[in-house]
């Protein structure tokens, strides 16, 4: 394996980190809530994709839009049923609430689906891999990356070009002022949470053909997501995309040059340095 090959595969997986992180960063930017359940919501989406495939023979890329819509609804329920009651509370209260959701989802997965590692069995997608200039690119990874680019692009368009996007951005900047301008802030929160969780759904479905799923799979991915969020700048979707690619490459290169088991520690050390040196992240902005 050459270094170029490593960088490419890091970039591709970085797209999925970006997708997970943009859900976190959107909710954080608009609602000022750190969603610690995002990793477990991703886990739920992975299981949903797997079960749709095992039970009904639905191809994961067909399941992807279904899971995304399903998770959007989950997000609405999560907000309407739980989070909305703590919006006026402090950070600690919200963090602990989402931790509670994370613990519950993880336990439920273990309870009903067991602790085994499960992988999705499917025909090699488009022949399994492509050869480009001596580099081999896994098609499922490439598909995940393309999905991430499309989803991020769609989200940016939504935020930039639509009335809803304008309302979301206004709420992120100053929720009181937005309320005074006649924006239904509570409904914006609801939709934002829906979109945030839907992004976990997209990421989960895209990831399922690549990774194994097990009840605690979300823990590691959530940590990566947080690293990306902080690197990209809290609340910045474009930053999250850039950050995702960087973290994907840093992880891949450090596990190639040093060792796979050290790569995590290196990513987190990188994270600490960013937090301390440039806590505003790469791109600063109120959502977009």
């Amino acid at each position, binding site marked *: 394996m050459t270094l170029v090959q490593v960088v490419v595969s890091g970039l591709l997986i970085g797209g999925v980190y970006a997708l997970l992180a943009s859900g976190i960063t959107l909710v*954080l930017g608009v609602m000022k809530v*750190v969603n610690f359940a995002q990793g477990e919501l991703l886990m739920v989406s992975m299981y949903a994709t797997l079960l749709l495939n095992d039970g009904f023979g639905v191809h994961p890329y067909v399941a992807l839009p279904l899971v995304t819509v399903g998770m959007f609804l989950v997000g609405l329920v999560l907000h309407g049923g*739980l989070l909305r*009651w*703590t919006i006026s*509370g402090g*950070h*600690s*209260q919200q*963090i*602990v*609430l989402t*931790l*509670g*959701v*994370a*613990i*519950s*989802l*993880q*336990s*439920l*997965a*273990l*309870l009903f689906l*067991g*602790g085994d590692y499960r992988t999705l069995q499917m025909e090699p997608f488009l022949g399994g891999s492509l050869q480009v200039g001596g580099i081999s690119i896994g098609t499922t990874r490439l598909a995940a990356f393309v999905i991430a680019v499309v989803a991020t692009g769609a989200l940016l368009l939504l935020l930039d070009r639509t009335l809803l996007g304008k309302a979301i951005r206004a709420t992120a900047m100053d929720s009181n002022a937005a309320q005074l301008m006649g924006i239904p802030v509570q409904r914006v929160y609801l939709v934002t949470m829906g979109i945030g969780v839907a992004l976990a759904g997209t990421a989960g479905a895209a990831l399922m053909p690549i990774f194994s799923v097990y*009840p605690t799979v979300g*823990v590691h991915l959530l*940590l990566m997501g*947080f*690293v990306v969020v*902080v690197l990209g700048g*809290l609340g910045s979707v474009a930053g999250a995309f850039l950050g995702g690619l960087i973290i994907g490459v840093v992880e891949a290169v450090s596990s190639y040059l040093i*060792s796979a*088991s*050290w790569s*995590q*520690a290196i990513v*987190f*050390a990188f*994270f*600490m340095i960013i*937090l*301390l040196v440039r*806590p505003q992240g790469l791109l600063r902005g109120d959502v977009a």
Partner: protein
Amino acid sequence: MNPTTREAPVTEPDKVSAARAAGTALVRHRHLVLWLLSLPVLGLLVAITATSELFYGHLIVITMVFAALATAWNIVGGFAGQLSLGHAGFFGVGAYTSSILYVDHGISPWIGLFVGMVLAGLMALLIGIPTFRLHGPYFALATLAMGAILLNMAVNFRELTGGEGGLSIPFEPSWANMTFADRWPYAIIMGIFLLICLGVSFVIANTRLGYQLAAVREDEEAARALGVNSARVKLIAGTVSGLLAGGVGAIYAQYILFINPESVFGINVSIQIIVLAVVGGSGVVLGPLIGALILVPASQFLLRDFGGDLPGLHTLVYGIVVIVVVLFAPRGVHGLIRSTVERLTAHRSRR
């Protein structure tokens, strides 16, 4: 207005007023009463541990372990309001320090306990200097990352820590080795350490430092404007908290006699500590203890009775209880008890 009309009626029978006086004395000196009660309670728990079946002994010791950890966390997470998500790091440093000193160098765990506490405190100080500059979610994320780095170090420094395989502590029972065949000596040691944690917590809460921490928690800017050195008080709280958590780790390692990175440094440990403190009532001395008394036995019973058939049920309880508490009793069970008592006494005085 004539001031004499506001005097209390003197027609009350002497018996009632005496009882009321005794009542107010009890309330006024409730801390003293609780501290005096703590030793017989500890004695009783040790007696139960010594006489009952293994499971109940384990239940008592493990509840003490988590009560002490949550009490230690509360000093920084509750009093100072800094949501640390990396407290397993200090627990793990204490556990690994005493275990490595004992297994590799034959140094008594009693000395290891103190070395572990000092190292964990030192680590808390070193981590605190940069991270306490961060606020709100940034601080939580930074401590989460610190915990993850420590976990990775424990996995990767294989020659020192045994890596993923963990460390087994030789079973050579004696007081000098802090290793026992029975559970009651552990109940004594852990019980005393829990009382130390509660005592330190009580002293901090009722002295200048505690008031300064509360001021920082409520409004850091305002506290600084009033002359509170917020960086310094947070560092002191963090160091004391880390020190105590490290001590719990060393005793826990001697009790379980086997540690691995996931069991002491794992993010689940950090989260469990927070859940206990928040459910009981963070920011008050007895809150974490109450949380541990409710949740740890509940989850241990579920683990014993359903662990084989229904894995995950014992952690599901943690998740659901913490959601319910955050939504319906944000000040925890302690806050719930207090407001109920206040409502009852207010009702009585109105009659």
